[in-house]
């Protein structure tokens, strides 16, 4: 297992390298002049040229890339073109906000998604199934900003129970995580339902019933564990997506997370920050896939990590 993890971690390095080249060239393919954007809306031509020189954008692309890679090797992601701060610090300050929002969203989405999924699978084609699937599918069909603004309207403005936004207390986590989690809960519910429905037809479920076990033990202990394998993959993927930050939810709830940082950085053509964020996303993705694989092995002893 340990060997497996180490090998996977080492395998990350070339992938990250390729990602860095891809991102580096992709962001520069997008039209837009960071020097002009950094210099401001009414900057003079001289100002813009000065900014360009200051940011090192007047150098040839290859040179810029070499400088960037050299920095990377020293753990330096460069300096934000917009704020002039080190990218590691810029991203670092935003990461925790996104992280907690992701954890809170995933936590309740997983619990509720699982609950709806199990209920729907057990009560297949009964009203509970229809209600569960209808609400779950509604969760993915609702435009997030709409849901978010409505939650603010109801719980903050009308009822005054919860703050409208910001990253201040646990209360301020509730509304954004509800908004962000509703889609994930829906995905988890659907996966759980179909996966559990298959498992409930398996022979070993019949064995468990033949043992005289009560239905809830059969579902939660025997069936669910097996049904969880695909659900865990999906949850892992979703976790990865959410860790990238959600532009819409972060905007609606003034959440100082990575999604807003990305959109701001793109608008400003803040190359080093975009590159830094993208590397972080790639890293997160690889790590999460690794965690998912390890979880597989824990859930299903038959899968051995090679």
């Amino acid at each position, binding site marked *: 297992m340990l060997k497996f993890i180490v090998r996977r971690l080492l395998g990350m390095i070339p992938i990250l390298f390729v990602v860095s080249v891809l991102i580096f060239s992709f962001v520069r393919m997008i039209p837009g002049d960071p020097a002009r954007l950094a210099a401001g809306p009414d900057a003079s031509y001289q100002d813009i040229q000065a900014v360009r020189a200051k940011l090192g954008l007047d150098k040839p692309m290859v040179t810029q890339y070499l400088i960037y890679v050299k920095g990377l090797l020293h753990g330096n992601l460069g300096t934000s073109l917009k704020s002039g701060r080190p990218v590691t610090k810029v991203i670092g300050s935003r990461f925790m906000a996104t992280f907690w929002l992701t954890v809170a969203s995933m936590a309740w989405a997983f619990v509720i998604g699982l609950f709806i999924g199990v209920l729907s699978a057990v009560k*297949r084609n009964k009203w509970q199934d229809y209600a569960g699937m209808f609400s779950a599918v509604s969760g993915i069909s609702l435009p997030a900003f709409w849901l978010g603004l409505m939650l603010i309207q109801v719980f903050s403005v009308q009822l005054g129970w919860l703050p409208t936004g910001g990253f201040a207390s646990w209360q301020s986590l509730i509304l954004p995580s509800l908004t962000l989690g509703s889609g994930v809960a829906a995905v988890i519910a659907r996966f759980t339902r179909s996966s559990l429905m298959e498992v*409930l037809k*398996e*022979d*070993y479920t*019949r*064995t*468990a*019933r*033949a*043992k*005289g*076990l*009560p239905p809830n*033990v059969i579902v939660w*202990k*025997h069936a669910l*564990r*097996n049904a969880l394998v695909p659900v865990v993959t999906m949850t892992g993927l979703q976790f990865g997506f959410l860790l990238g930050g959600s532009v819409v939810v972060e905007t609606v709830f003034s959440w100082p997370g990575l999604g807003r940082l990305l959109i701001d950085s793109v608008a400003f053509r803040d190359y080093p920050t975009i590159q830094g964020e993208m590397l972080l996303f790639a890293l997160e993705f690889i790590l999460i896939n690794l965690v998912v694989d390890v979880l597989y092995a824990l*859930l*299903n*002893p*038959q899968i051995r990590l090679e």
Partner: protein
Amino acid sequence: MKKPVLEITGLQTHFFSDDEVVRAVDGVDIRIEEGQTLGLVGESGCGKSVTSLSVMGLLGDTGGKVVAGSVFFKGKDLLRLSDKEMRRLRGHEMSMIFQEPMTSLNPTLRIGEQIAEGIRLHLALDKKKARSRVLETLKAVGIPRAEGIMREYPYQLSGGMRQRVMIAMAMSCEPDLLIADEPTTALDVTIQAQILDLMRKLKEKKETAIMFITHDLGVVADMCDRVVVMYAGQVMEEADARELFANPGHPYTRGLLGSLPKLLSGQKRLGVIPGNVPVFKQVPSGCRFAGRCSYQTEKCLREVPPLLKAGDRHLARCWQTFGLAGVEAGTADKAGLQ
């Protein structure tokens, strides 16, 4: 006559799908006495497995429903019990072994836990006592290094070992009735012999009544005291094992016996029963086997034959039983047999 452990009377289990009704079990009577091993024989789709699932109350969401009849188990009508009461019996006083040892064990739970949970549930033993009981049962089914196996997962075991585990699981609470649904079909021949051997030993030791479901008459000859032959949802013939093999009273039984290879018999080709087991959506007018029967007459197509006496403790559902067995046309009804 010994006390019956299980007495099935007029059992009808139908499957409902869309607008169709399939009569998978259509009026079956079966009686198993204490310590007796009853073979339930027939081709795939004849209703033998459905009968067993109906007894165990495991039809679940297969779409099947018991619509008539009674199933008395130790004096209680199982069909009238609540789910909760049924659960108390299942795996405790009556248990079941399935055909597929490869898929019948939960791949994510350790062997020890899978056996122990039933013991803890039914016998209310604490963890430690349950554990020693598990160990005991595993040893009883001939599993070497039982301690180690308890901590292993199903994928680490061979098919034969898994079936032993299944048997251990079924026997762990010392049931009065064990239903074994083709327990050896999926296994290699050599392993089959071992498992049958094991079951025979257990049967002798614990005096458990067994309903042994199989399509293999060879196994029946080996294991069973009495045999019920089923076809298309009905009992076609019922007799003690010896009697059945000596004097098969029904053309279908004959067919089955004909398809059995006999050593040293000099037989060139195995016999074949043409056609498949039919599925009934409506009550047919005549004998259900008529379409595949080489002795078919007009009466066979017109009237359903009742179970007719075909010998000592021997019934067969055929108008021409006498013609086959050389026994006088059975006028005796079923009641006379018992």
